[in-house]
């Protein structure tokens, strides 16, 4: 075992002693651990700096954000930006934007969970004619860039008179149009032992029973990762709401955020950043509550059944 060299030992030291973990002194171990932690903390600092900058800036007056101001903290600490942010825009309260975002995000989670799990069950467990063709087609939609379908989709919804409603934004979720989630669940289900549903079939269970009583409970990790991703993607979606919503009262947060910064007039960076901080909270909470399942959900995907 000579693969691990301690970073404290210069490589030029001669003659190179054969590394033996057992003979390593407690002191060397401690140095190694300290160095590891310092490096890790430094990296964390680099990664987290933008978030820290955002939070710090939300308490600064507008004229001290960005530009020639490089200090992180300001002596003019105030909550004014949050007050402006909560004032709303053009007569629509910020609470309304939050509610709209929540409706869309929860709608997306419910729709995706319901539709993707059922579709995945069909692909993974039911042998029907053309199954592999349909599966291939579903995967093919993953390769289709979103921008290709924008216009045709818009025309369809426009002709149906559904523009300026939440239907164009949510209907796809309820029809399992998010191929990524269907695929994720199919892969998960394929890894579940077939003996389980065979046993259930012998006991007289039909597809509905097998799905609800056996598959769904076992799929919890996949369902949770799907919820988390689906929630975050919907929460952050800008283009969809931009194209389909016309009434400011129906706007979700990402649209509202942009309205504080107008390059053609004056920009209120302070209010925008304060609102970003607020907009981040629900996602952060959602993530913190469910994060251990994310790792579980994704890592189980890789296991061979």
């Amino acid at each position, binding site marked *: 075992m000579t693969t691990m060299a301690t970073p404290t030992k210069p490589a030029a030291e001669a003659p190179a002693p054969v590394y033996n973990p057992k003979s390593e002194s407690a002191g060397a171990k401690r140095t190694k651990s300290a160095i590891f932690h310092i490096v890790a903390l430094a990296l964390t600092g680099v990664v987290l700096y933008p978030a820290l900058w955002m939070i710090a800036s939300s308490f600064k007056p*507008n*004229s001290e954000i*960005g*530009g*020639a*101001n490089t200090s992180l903290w300001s002596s003019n600490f105030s909550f004014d930006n949050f007050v402006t942010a909560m004032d709303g*825009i*053009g*007569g629509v309260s910020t609470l309304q934007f939050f509610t709209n975002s929540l409706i869309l995000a929860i709608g997306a989670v419910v729709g995706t969970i319901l539709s993707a799990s059922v579709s995945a069950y069909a692909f993974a467990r039911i042998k029907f004619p053309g199954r592999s063709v349909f599966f291939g087609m579903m995967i093919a939609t993953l390769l289709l860039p979103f*921008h290709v379908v*924008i*216009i*045709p989709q*818009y*025309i369809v919804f*426009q*002709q149906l008179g559904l*523009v300026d409603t939440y239907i164009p934004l949510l209907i796809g979720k309820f029809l399992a149009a998010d191929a990524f989630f269907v695929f994720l669940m199919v892969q998960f289900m394929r890894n579940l032992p077939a003996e389980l549903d065979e046993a259930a079939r012998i006991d007289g269970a039909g597809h509905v029973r097998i799905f609800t009583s056996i598959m769904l409970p076992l799929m919890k990790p996949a369902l949770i990762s799907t919820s988390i991703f689906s929630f975050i993607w919907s929460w952050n979606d*800008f*283009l969809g709401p*931009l*194209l389909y919503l*016309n*009434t*400011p009262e129906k706007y979700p947060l990402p*649209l509202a955020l*942009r*309205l*504080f*910064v*107008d*390059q*053609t*007039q*004056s*920009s*209120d960076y302070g*209010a925008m950043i304060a609102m970003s901080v607020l907009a981040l909270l629900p996602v952060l909470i959602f993530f913190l509550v469910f994060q251990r399942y994310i790792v579980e959900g994704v890592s189980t995907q890789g296991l061979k059944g």
Partner: protein
Amino acid sequence: MIDRRKFLTTVALGTASAAVLAACGAPAPAQTGSAENPVTINYTWWGNDDRAERTRKAIALFEEKNKDIKVNGNFTDFAGYWQKRATEAAGGGLPDVMQFDLSYMRDYGQRNQLLDLGTVKINTDAFDKSLLPSGQIRGKTYGIPTSTNAFAVYYDPAKLASLGIAEPDGTWNYDEFNKFLAEVGAKGNGALFGGTDYTGVWWMFNVWLRQNNIEAFTEDGKLGFTKDDLKKWWNLTADLRGTPALVSEERVTQLAPKSPFGSNVTGTEVTWDNFMAGYLADSGAKELKLVPVPSDDKDNLGLFLKPSMLMAASAKTKNKDAAARFIDFMVNDPEVGQIFKTSRGVPASKTQRDGTTFEGTDKLVVDYEKSIEKYLKDAPEPPIVGFGTLEASFKRVASDMNYGKLTVDGAADAWFKEAEDLIKQNA
């Protein structure tokens, strides 16, 4: 911001499919409303919270005076605005009335997306005749300017005073202007630079071309100037690059999205006069002043009023008359002027301008435009299709030049190649 090529493909794709769909339905008859049963028109604009608030007031006033029309307002930020319009244009769902930007006028006008406003009743008597052509393409009026802006040199009197530099009076040629920049840079001692490289700004180049009696674009949408003109222009500040007279490109990039002037890093800035409010807010300065741009010809400053925005209507609107009445109201009514002040630019219609009281910052901008009145020439026609890309590449190439990656000759070659390719593509 959505880039031009993507925009064009989107619209082209969409118009094709929309045409197919449109062929299926007969045009709906024009509707008229009454107080009991009002017609509804959609109006959309870009802008911030402040503009949303002002527009809401203007709409309320309009609805009060026109009981037979209801106006549904909606707004987005500038970049999102054009993404949304491109999709709607493709789907045939453009709003009845739209706030419009000069650089998008030709794209939409040529594709027959906009209503010819010459066919409806909008009063343009109170408009300066030199301004109206900017909303017209081949004799058809697609946009009515709401307000104007003009090019100017900004400076902060307090900063100049602290350095012991006399305030400029705005009668200067390029040599004198450069000397002024160098003086500010030298006395600024690393803390304050003279200005940003004004030769990197397309519109300032356009002003200079006009000072030399050259049109930027020919009638048939080609470039009206030569590579030598461009080299001459970029050589104007060749001696200043890399000196304290001009802030370095690295610094400009660091400061983005704020401007160096707004960040109190430069003493002057050459840009549109309606940036005043933004600069005041960004810099926290007590007072900023405006003077005319330099010119080597004392009698020809090359200045013009550009519509800061226009009002346009969709070609497919079912309520032409209601749309026309709303546009007329927004551009002419003095009370609307009182609501917006100069937040859209200086009101273009004389009726509206005279009916508005300007104070403080607003007054500075209005007074500036009054002071240059005798130098004003015709406003530019809507720029060629793909102008946004040209303008952006002008800025990028000039910035590469300031980084020292390109020589003036190399930069001129690079930009001309891009420009000619683009014009060929869109021809």
